[in-house]
């Protein structure tokens, strides 16, 4: 939270004249924060439980193109396509989770594989069916309202982001399932010994992660009025970066939705702030890299501090 205010103030000063602190500027960074925040939240939960998901990028792209092709080329009802998109997301999560839990392979590799397989399938099928890998979409007012509402520059994604953060916070802190998530990542064999169904916990979180990626895919499709199979690959690493900046431990067992929320704010402020400050956006990666390194060091320092006998 301190870091988030600091980064905000930094860009507020540097990009004051360009209108970073204006209504539009604020809406711009909120949009960016919200979109990465939606997936980073779920990736963060998964990381707390000790697993990774790199397949979110392809889920975003695949569901956006599925929605576009279905509504535009086949004139399907947008609500039905919406259900199909979320079904695709859920199945992807289930496959990721089932393979990871059954084979005990690192989820890093499993989801890297599904990320490639899914983007390949999305590109291949959309080329086969429509001879292109991007397509415009058709919606209904109801779908527009849920996933495409805008107030000035601010996107409905901001509301989804806030709502999901609240839900995730309640689940993690106030339900038995939340306790199991921390235990699964903190010490899996101890958790299993205490009767926690760790495999179930992981599979649920993989499905939730894919569903948030689907949500983001649909939001972006409706926002830009088009779907693109190649969309979303940037989030593959941005989401875990945001989670780590938000205080989630790489090794699992520790982190909070509120932390990831502030991590997302930092990400949005930097991304949009650099643009508003008029600097070359090539510097963004350098900023993020430095920040990630600082965050990892700080996290491991606080972890040691918290565990020292006192």
């Amino acid at each position: 939270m301190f870091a988030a205010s600091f980064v905000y103030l930094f860009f507020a000063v540097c990009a004051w004249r360009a209108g970073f602190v204006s209504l539009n500027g604020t809406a711009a960074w909120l949009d960016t924060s919200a979109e990465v925040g939606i997936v980073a939240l779920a990736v963060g939960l998964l990381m707390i439980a000790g697993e990774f998901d790199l397949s979110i990028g392809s889920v975003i792209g695949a569901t956006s193109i599925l929605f576009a092709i279905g509504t535009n080329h086949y004139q399907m009802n947008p609500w039905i396509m919406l259900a199909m998109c979320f079904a695709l997301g859920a199945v992807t999560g289930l496959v990721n989770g089932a393979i990871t839990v059954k084979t005990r392979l690192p989820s890093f590799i499993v989801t890297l594989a599904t990320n490639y397989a899914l983007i390949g399938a999305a590109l291949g099928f959309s080329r086969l069916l429509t001879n292109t890998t991007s397509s415009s979409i058709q919606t209904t007012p109801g779908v527009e309202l849920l996933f495409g509402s805008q107030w000035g520059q601010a996107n409905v994604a901001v509301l989804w982001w806030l709502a999901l953060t609240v839900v995730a916070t309640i689940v993690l802190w106030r339900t038995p399932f939340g306790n199991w998530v921390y235990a699964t990542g903190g010490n899996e064999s101890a958790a299993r010994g205490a009767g926690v169904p760790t495999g179930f916990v992981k599979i649920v979180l993989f499905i939730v992660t894919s569903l948030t990626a689907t949500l983001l895919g649909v939001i972006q499709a409706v926002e830009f009025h088009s779907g693109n199979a190649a969309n979303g690959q940037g989030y593959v690493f941005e989401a875990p970066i945001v989670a780590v900046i938000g205080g989630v431990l790489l090794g699992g067992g520790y982190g909070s939705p509120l932390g990831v929320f502030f991590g997302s704010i930092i990400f949005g402020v930097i991304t949009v702030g650099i643009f508003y400050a008029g600097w070359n956006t090539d510097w963004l990666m350098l900023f993020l890299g430095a920040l990630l390194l600082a965050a990892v060091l700080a996290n491991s320092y606080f972890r040691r501090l918290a565990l020292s006998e006192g």
Partner: protein
Amino acid sequence: MTQSDPILQLIGVSKIFAGTQALRNVTISVRPGAVLCLLGDNGAGKSTLIKILSGVHPPSAGAMLVDGVETRFSSPREARAKGVATVHQDVGAIPLMSVTRNFFLGAEPTRGWGPFRLFDSSAAAVAALAAIREFGLTRVTDGEQLVGTLSGGERQALSIARAMYFGARVLILDEPTSALGVKEAAKVLSLVKAARTRGIGIVFITHNARHAMAIGDDFVVLNQGAVAASFRRGEKTREEVLDLMAGGDGSEPRPDLEDDA
């Protein structure tokens, strides 16, 4: 049934893993309010025996009796439900979680109804703190304290208090003192005594003859998967026990063997 009838018995139990005989015809019995010390060198079959008692593996041959009734545990969860709890040395606690959350892990008390059932953290904290205080863990006054800040002995106290809170009648303690310093080990031994006074049957697994002699009522020495000796408190000297653990017949004390306390 009288109070001193065994709670848990193994009769003629053998275990074979892929052609290797890990246990051969082992008979032990755990009495309420008594400490059964299971002694043996590394590889003597102690861990296999723990796994059978705690429901991880079924025996290949022989019978397990709970309250005199033949029983088969299909899982550690079932063993716990029948009152047989195992406290492992390292894997019992999750360092980055609070005392309260560790205490109720897998059995979280909830408030509310249906899908809106929430973890009742304030009631959980009160119950957990009261339970660990009974076992002398008075240093912890905030249920939110992370378990990683506790010492090895304090974690043992937490695990034992937890097992007893959830209704354990038999406590299996796997090498509870081996990784601890002298002071901490003494604390754990007094914990075991406290549990014994409450009528709990305790299986105390160790390769430390000194700790065993300090606490044990019944003794079983394992050697190469078989019971090398079985005796009551005061029937053998420490030298004889050490000799048995090293594979001798216990008849000749061997002063050259030093215990590793």
